[in-house]
């Protein structure tokens, strides 16, 4: 994504999501089959939430690399690694996920979380993760399928129009989650498993934040997907639900794992 900031989020957003995603994060680690001394990679490391956790799993005899296209995230990740006292074996580099500065077969396992949805070339990123992984090593990708996002409302037609627009137009690869199974198979990875994990949010304000409704709605208006009047109706219906305690939204995250043959 160096050429585009579509879908870019700040560190505060990433912190809130990381709290919610903690359980899934741990499951990606366990699918990586990490042992002390392993070399592992996190593609799209952001401010280092996962690299620091991985740092304690591999221990000081191991090595963790995080890459991110955003130098500000890399600087923050390095600061956090220093604070956590793991900077000796946890490193972060500013790099393109489709052309990473590592030798082929360098890592025991690789992971990537909520990165592919922002990429124009997710296949290229998976190919690159596969290249830098050792034969027999695990590759684990966790990503959202924004196409499955749904909000309970009587304004169903409006909801379908908005959700389709968000998934299709506000992310480079908004249907990422549902595509992982195919991509893993195309890369001839072995022992592929794909799990779909539903996420329910009954807090309207949190959902607005998590699903970035403010910016998505502004974009939908600008592109004339909805009128101001429709958007007003949409907001009213959701605010009513919030007041009645009946707000309900859901989306799905897919977790794919496979080994380099």
């Amino acid at each position: 994504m160096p050429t585009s900031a579509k879908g870019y989020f700040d560190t505060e957003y990433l912190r809130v999501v990381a709290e919610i995603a903690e359980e899934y994060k741990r499951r990606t680690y366990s699918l990586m089959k990490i042992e002390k001394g392993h070399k592992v990679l996190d593609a799209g490391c952001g401010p280092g939430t996962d690299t620091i956790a991985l740092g304690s799993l591999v221990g000081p005899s191991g090595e963790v690399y995080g890459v991110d296209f955003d130098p500000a995230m890399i600087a923050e990740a390095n600061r956090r690694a220093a604070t956590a006292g793991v900077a000796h074996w946890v490193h972060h580099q500013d790099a393109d996920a489709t052309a990473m500065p590592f030798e082929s077969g360098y890592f025991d396992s690789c992971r990537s979380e909520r990165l592919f949805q922002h990429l124009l070339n997710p296949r290229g990123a998976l190919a690159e993760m596969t290249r830098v992984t050792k034969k027999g090593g695990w590759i684990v990708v966790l990503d959202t399928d924004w196409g499955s996002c749904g909000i309970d409302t009587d304004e169903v037609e409006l909801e379908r129009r908005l959700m389709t627009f968000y998934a299709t137009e506000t992310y480079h690869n908004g249907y990422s989650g549902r595509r992982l199974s195919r991509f893993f198979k195309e890369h001839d990875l072995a022992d592929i498993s794909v799990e779909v994990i539903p996420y329910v949010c009954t807090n309207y304000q949190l959902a607005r934040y998590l699903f970035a409704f403010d910016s998505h709605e502004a974009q939908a208006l600008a592109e004339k997907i909805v009128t101001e009047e429709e958007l007003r109706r949409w907001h009213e219906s959701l605010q009513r639900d919030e007041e009645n305690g009946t707000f309900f939204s859901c989306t799905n995250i897919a977790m794919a794992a496979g080994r380099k043959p």
Partner: protein
Amino acid sequence: MMATSTKGYVDTEYLRIVAELLEKPKRQTYLPMQIEKGDKVLDVGCGPGTDTLALAELVGPTGEVYGVDFDGAMVAEAELRAEKARVNGWVHHKEADATAMPFASGSFDACRSERVFQHSLNPRAILAEMVRVTKKDGWVVVLDSDWGSLGVDTDEVEIERRLMSFSATETHHNGVSGRCLYRFFKEQGLTDISVELLPIVITSYPLMSLIYTFGEKERQALAAKIVTTDEIQRWRASLERAEANGTFFAYFCMALVAGCKS
């Protein structure tokens, strides 16, 4: 509940295949019903008796199971199966409208309904009726699909979105049923409400076609001019390619919602 309309009607062979696929979610509905031996329980939209027979085991011969369905043929088949399974002493099936069931208020210890609301023009009324016939402190459990969550992996994303939105909103009376349940349960004043989403992943194109009757939905979308013949051909070709490559991937979520009548 569908007496005036057959939108979304399906036959017993279809129900058998779906029952296999949905066996796990089905079993998960029995747990929140908190069934004990001797309980009196109800299955709304019982079809050919798949669940009433399973519930019979859970309540035992000292209990009682009722299944209701709007379709007389389903009720007859369910009765036949109950007889074969020798549980007809305490398992009964009745032809009835789910919004006006022939039971006194507070008759049942627990009620369930599975994949019924999606076919209903008035799902709130079914839930209200289930609540009425349930005893105080009894459990009401509903499992239903959210066809709005159905996604099929394809490069023909735009066609896929159009077809899926159309089929969820236009080919079922209440195709996004799953996501509405939480609101409906709250509106009924049920307490201790729990919601669980259960993803159903399908990696076979023929199976997906069968369980979601793609052919029928494509015909309706064509007739409604949602898609062109050429687009349908491109869509099918993409899924056939995925099937041939072993990469077909689709899923949808079912919602399992339980609440207590307080």
